[in-house]
């Protein structure tokens, strides 16, 4: 049976970003299924031994990334610029994420700079009306430049 006419898919995603702007990570997670998948495509941390990628589950890696990001950018906001969805549970949103750095984040040292970075988030909704998959895209080069980092890695 196909997952048709999921009620409120756009509303759930909007609520997700409202929670993000309110820094309510628990509510963000509560809008996702327990086993929801998480993919932050540009996220790569290159160590000496291995590369850590932004793939995993919302309740593990996603929650950690959101919490750490908000901690490093305590005035972080999200603004939905465009959103579309179909009747099969797919939602796409262009979202502007902004913030002023107060702590280092990953390899990005803190210079107290502000950023505004357009993102794309793709969601797949589960039958229960909760998010079952989140995929994020952005341009890390643009982010690095705005925060004063000029090394590619």
């Amino acid at each position, binding site marked *: 049976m196909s997952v048709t006419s999921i009620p409120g898919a756009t509303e759930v995603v909007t609520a997700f970003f409202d929670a993000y702007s309110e820094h309510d990570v628990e509510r963000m997670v509560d809008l996702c299924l327990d086993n929801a998948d998480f993919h932050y*495509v*540009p996220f*790569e941390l290159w160590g000496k031994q291995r590369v850590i990628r932004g793939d995993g589950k919302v309740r593990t890696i996603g929650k950690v990334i959101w919490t750490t990001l908000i901690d490093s950018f305590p005035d972080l906001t999200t603004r939905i610029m465009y959103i*579309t*969805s*179909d*009747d*099969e549970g*797919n939602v*796409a949103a*262009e979202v502007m994420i902004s913030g002023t750095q107060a702590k280092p984040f990953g390899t990005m040292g803190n210079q107290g700079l502000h950023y505004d970075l*357009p*993102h*794309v988030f*793709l969601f797949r909704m589960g039958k229960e009306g909760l998010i079952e998959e989140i*995929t994020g*895209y*952005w*341009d*890390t*080069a*643009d*982010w*690095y*430049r705005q925060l004063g*980092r*000029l*090394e*590619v*890695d």
Partner: protein
Amino acid sequence: MNNQDVARSFFAKMDSHDSSGALALVAPQAEVTLIPLKLQGDVELVGRQYFEQLLSAFPDLSVRVRRLFVGNDNTAVAEITIEGTQAADFFGIINQEKLMDLEQVWFLHVNDGVIDRIKSYWCQNRLYRRLGVKRLDHVTITS
């Protein structure tokens, strides 16, 4: 063709290196926005420049659609992966003959079977890393 077919055809023509065929699916007045390149303009200027540079720089380019759906506002949303080996400079990135693979998201708004608005996102930092660029302020300096 329905809207999904139009979008799939667009990427299939890119995969077969038929940039003119892909652009023939796009209205002449369509606006193209390539977020990571900070380029925005008419398809004949920005779109053709991008596709022709891409195919020239990566002559073995492949384009694979990983996910595609059409929103209720007739916007096709596609996750694609492009792969290729660099053989010429690409938007200031000098050629070191490196292999790149890059995930992208494309928004294609379709109206009466014709694409009339295009927007694309990808991580330019990942592309720089794959192609050997070391610094964002000196994209053409690689070591």
